């Protein structure tokens, strides 16, 4: 029907859509910059793979167990770190991501630096399509609910949101946990498709790649994450003809894209999407100074 090569690309696109849209919930809708999303993917991948290998439980059980553990870790990591803001939060998530990777590199049960091999191939195209659609549906429902509005309020102005009675810590942790859960789901699908996982597959660069998908597509836009994930999975494949120039062009595209359209393909105009720009921040400072002087 479809050649194995295209099948693999379609499956990767599906997994990346799950990764990007779950990260979008954290970065795009809640405005919390996370650069350790791949760590949750690796938790889901390892837990589900180990469950399948050791107990032989059905795929759906191990998949959900992996996602649940990832979600739990998301909450556990989120509680202390989400007090941090902006770049500091980003660095803390980076640190946690690296720690999880190093731990997986040294544990016995994960196969250490050799990686985990011989995982049964359970992920089919149908599974990927089903899980992707289900994830998108659930995420969309969350965003359009009371919870989603609270998250967007936090992104727009955390202090104002808090003063309006939104429990910001609770909602930020919730978003982080839900994002981690779906990342774990993506990781489980990944492990049971490629049948071999290694901690370095889920390293820093993978987190960055997922962040690029979200930003390129447009922060805080469901279609943006889908398009970003599809584009950044497909572009390297399209460029495969000039294999050695592949990543060179990829890097250049990122730079040029940000110059031409900093808000991403489908993002709203600047200022409405997460994170204050330098200019806005500095004008805010000036206003405060003037305010104090006039008082």
């Amino acid at each position, binding site marked *: 029907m479809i050649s194995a090569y295209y099948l693999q690309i379609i499956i990767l696109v599906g997994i990346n859509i799950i990764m990007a849209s779950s990260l979008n919930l954290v970065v795009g809708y809640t405005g919390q910059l996370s650069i350790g999303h791949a760590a949750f993917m690796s938790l889901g991948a390892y837990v589900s793979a180990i469950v399948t290998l050791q107990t032989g439980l059905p795929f759906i059980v191990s998949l959900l167990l992996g996602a649940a553990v990832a979600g739990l870790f998301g909450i556990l990591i989120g509680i202390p770190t989400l007090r941090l803001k902006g770049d500091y939060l980003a*660095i803390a998530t980076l640190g946690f991501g690296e720690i999880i990777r190093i731990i997986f590199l040294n544990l016995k049960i994960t196969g250490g630096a050799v990686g985990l091999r011989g995982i049964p191939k359970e992920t089919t195209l149908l599974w990927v399509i089903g899980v992707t659609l289900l994830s998108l549906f659930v995420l969309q429902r969350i965003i359009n609910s009371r919870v989603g509005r609270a998250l967007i309020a936090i992104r727009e102005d955390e202090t104002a949101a808090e003063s309006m009675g939104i429990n910001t810590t609770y909602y930020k942790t919730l978003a982080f946990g839900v994002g981690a859960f779906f990342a774990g789901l993506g990781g489980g699908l990944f492990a049971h498709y490629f049948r071999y996982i290694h901690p370095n597959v889920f390293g820093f660069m993978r987190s960055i790649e997922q962040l690029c998908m979200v930003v390129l597509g447009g922060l805080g836009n469901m279609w943006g994450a889908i398009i970003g994930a599809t584009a950044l999975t497909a572009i390297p494949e399209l460029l495969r003809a000039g294999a050695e*120039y592949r990543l060179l062009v990829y890097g250049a595209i990122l730079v040029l894209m*940000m110059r031409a359209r900093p808000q991403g393909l489908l993002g709203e105009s600047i200022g409405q999407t997460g994170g*204050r720009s330098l200019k806005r921040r500095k004008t805010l400072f000036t206003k405060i100074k003037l305010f104090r002087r006039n008082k």
Partner: protein
Amino acid sequence: MFVQQLVNGIILGSIYSLIALGYTMVYGIIMLINFAHGEIYMFGAFAGMILVVFYDVPFFLAFLLAMAFAGLVGLTLEYLAYRPLRRSTRLAALISAIGASIFLQNLALLIMGARPYTFPSPFTPRVYQSTLLTISKLEIIILAISFLLMIGLTFFIQKTKIGKAMRAAAQDIDTASLMGVNVNQIISITFLIGSALGAAAGVMVGIYFRTVTPTMGLMPGLKGFVAAVLGGIGRIPGAMLGGLLLGIAEVMAAAYISSQYRDAAAFAILILVLLFKPAGLVGSAIQEKV
């Protein structure tokens, strides 16, 4: 044993400090995490290695030329990838920096190939031994160069007119420009100096471990950034202190806990510092006002 590990930690740490300075200076002025800094460090190491190995340039001249070359790369990077984004969101600038980092790394892979190059040590291998401590001539030179560069930078920032302008821009970029500081020029100079210091670290790591590869920038880049955050990002003395502490902590963790977890130790310290003193060791907390 302990003194030996301490000295090893300080040597590694002084290199982290040099890398961290590049991050912290840039962040202090334009609030950008310059992700391509690790690649600048790698470019510096390659420039030094090529000059010494292929063109027989004397080591110290090659060292200075490598710093100058990396400085120019940093300058171009700022002009092409960051300047157009100065008024846009910080996330867009961050993605641009990541793109630049991927681009530069693959440019080096394309030109030099993936195989590691040997960077022979230009100094006669001599080792000084005492009961407590064994230290090689190379290690002493690395320490001396790092500390000279750091002292030089401190002098430059504190005593010269350009240094004063840099401090003013770091405090408030708009007000500084109203006071007649040419902000664009200051940002360029910041990139020039930061990149040159990164290249100095790259060349020294090159001769210390005797190899240079296109992917050598990733981990030290991350560590340098961790060091900058550890000390309080945007603070120059903080970057120096953070680098030294990180180096010492890493070597101690490798010696007394487990060498497999040395990188994990670095990141664990980072998270602890962030949780208990989010502004870094030297930084002061900024209260958010409404």
